């Protein structure tokens, strides 16, 4: 889709915002969803200033210096201490991170 930001800003509704919150794995209250709907639409309308630019023949720029394939020699190096890393987790046991069930539930 190559639509204008202005047009998109006019289409932002509460349903769209709820879908985005779900994608972002963010539990938002009703008040937060209302606020996000207003704010997102307002920001997109403001950002519509770039609709005026002719960008068809412009190459996207993802980073300041396009370094590619930065590799090091394939030799083992010292790694972080296993116990120290696990000690920082909310739940860990038997040398692993602990999480609630991921199977058998309707996600």
């Amino acid at each position: 889709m190559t639509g204008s930001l202005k047009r998109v800003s006019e289409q932002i509704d509460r349903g769209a915002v709820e879908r985005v919150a779900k994608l972002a794995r963010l539990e938002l209250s009703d008040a937060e969803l209302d606020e996000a709907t207003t704010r997102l639409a307002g920001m997109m309308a403001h950002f519509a200033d770039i609709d005026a630019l002719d960008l068809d023949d412009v190459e996207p720029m993802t980073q300041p210096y396009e370094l590619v394939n930065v590799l090091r020699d394939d030799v083992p190096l010292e790694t972080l201490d296993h116990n120290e890393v696990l000690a920082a987790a909310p739940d860990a046991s038997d040398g692993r991170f602990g999480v609630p069930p991921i199977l058998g539930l309707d996600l």
Partner: protein
Amino acid sequence: MSTFQSARSIAASVSTGESSAVDVVSQHLARIEEREEEVHAFNLVLHDEALQSAERVDERIAAGEQVGPLAGVPIALKDNLCTRGIPTTCSSNILDGWRPPYDATVVSRLADAGAVFVGKTNLDEFAMGSSTENSAFGPTRNPLDTSRVPGGSSGGSAAAVAAGFSAMSLGSDTGGSIRQPAALCGVVGVKPTYGAVSRLGLIAFASSLDQIGPFTHDVADAALLLECMAGHDPGDSTSIPKPFPSLSESLDRGVAGLRIGRIVDLPSGADADVVASVDRAFEVLADAGAEIIDVTIPAFTYGLTAYYLIAPAEASSNLARYDGVRFGSRVEAADTNSMYMATRGEGFGPEVKRRIMLGTYALSAGYYDAFYGKALKVRRLMAQDFATAYESVDALVTPASPSVAFPFGSKTSDPLAMYLCDSYTIPSNLIGHPAMSVPFGAGENDLPVGVQVLAPAMGEPTMFAVAAELERSAGGNHV
């Protein structure tokens, strides 16, 4: 203008045994004791650790060892820089209780140079903000006028230097988060060339924009601190694999023969007092022998839009790691997905949620090309326009912030008004160029104005020459 002792002077007197690191650090801790309750620059003061490090510095000097160019210098670290075993919060509840298992590269490099860390400084949560009002732990107040903000997001680091709590500090700058608080607190702040300073151990906000940089009392201290931490790091794949240029010779070079650009199509919106200081800066530079040349950078105006699509997009991806599994807090729930949602819903503050939503939206199916893709093309235009300008000039000068320090609460109800604080600083992040703010003149209520000096990638020597000239003519601090 700052009246505190420079880091160069501290390191020189500690290295020769004229003063002890313990005494220097104690003086700074005493100032913290006296004013921290009012300023709230720190999330954590490393009182005992700092005194122990200072003792070790003194012991090494007594044993005849060369300690390094920052011997005994008290330094504050923005609380998004990892410090092994020491809480690192990003001023967010979601990292509650987290102790990193490693040090950021900059932390190791400064420790090797003899620095003593006095604390972890407050910031807008995950560095998202321009006033430090978005911290989960309460705002930092501007030491020059505590009814006003210190700027942000590195407000704690700027305030720590301005209040004399530390001789230097480190911040991070994704869209102006070093330069704007430096301007508002009347100290020097530098965003180096992207890739000049390792980002290993800097908790990521927007990886293609973030850079670590110094806050100092004067330009020469900023040069010293940058030289101590810059240079290739194999641990950061975006680190420039070339030596960083020396800056010390630039400081007394002057500006004779330099061509300095004035951007005639700069976005409007700067207050009259700020504009007057920038005009005066051009006069001073011309008097010192620089040639002032008018240039145009048409894409400058679109920087804010490009930034507020790109930075939240990168942030929404970087902040996906805070899911209650590997670090920080967790809200328990029956299944993993509900645990993610509840943990993130509770752990992140309003501005972080706002940016994650904006970024997720900009990257979502159907909108990627319209938002993120377009913003990346504007970024290319920005790089091209700057490249054209630099064919005729060596450096550029603009305001760092559109206003002097503003009162608490004056921009919090309108995120867009807050975002406009970054209008003049954002382009340098988008294209990876260095830029710095130098205190120059005063505005409303005698509050400091920061003038921004910009240069092409790895153009720090020229940038520092211009900044040093401005500092000299402003009667700067050369203790």
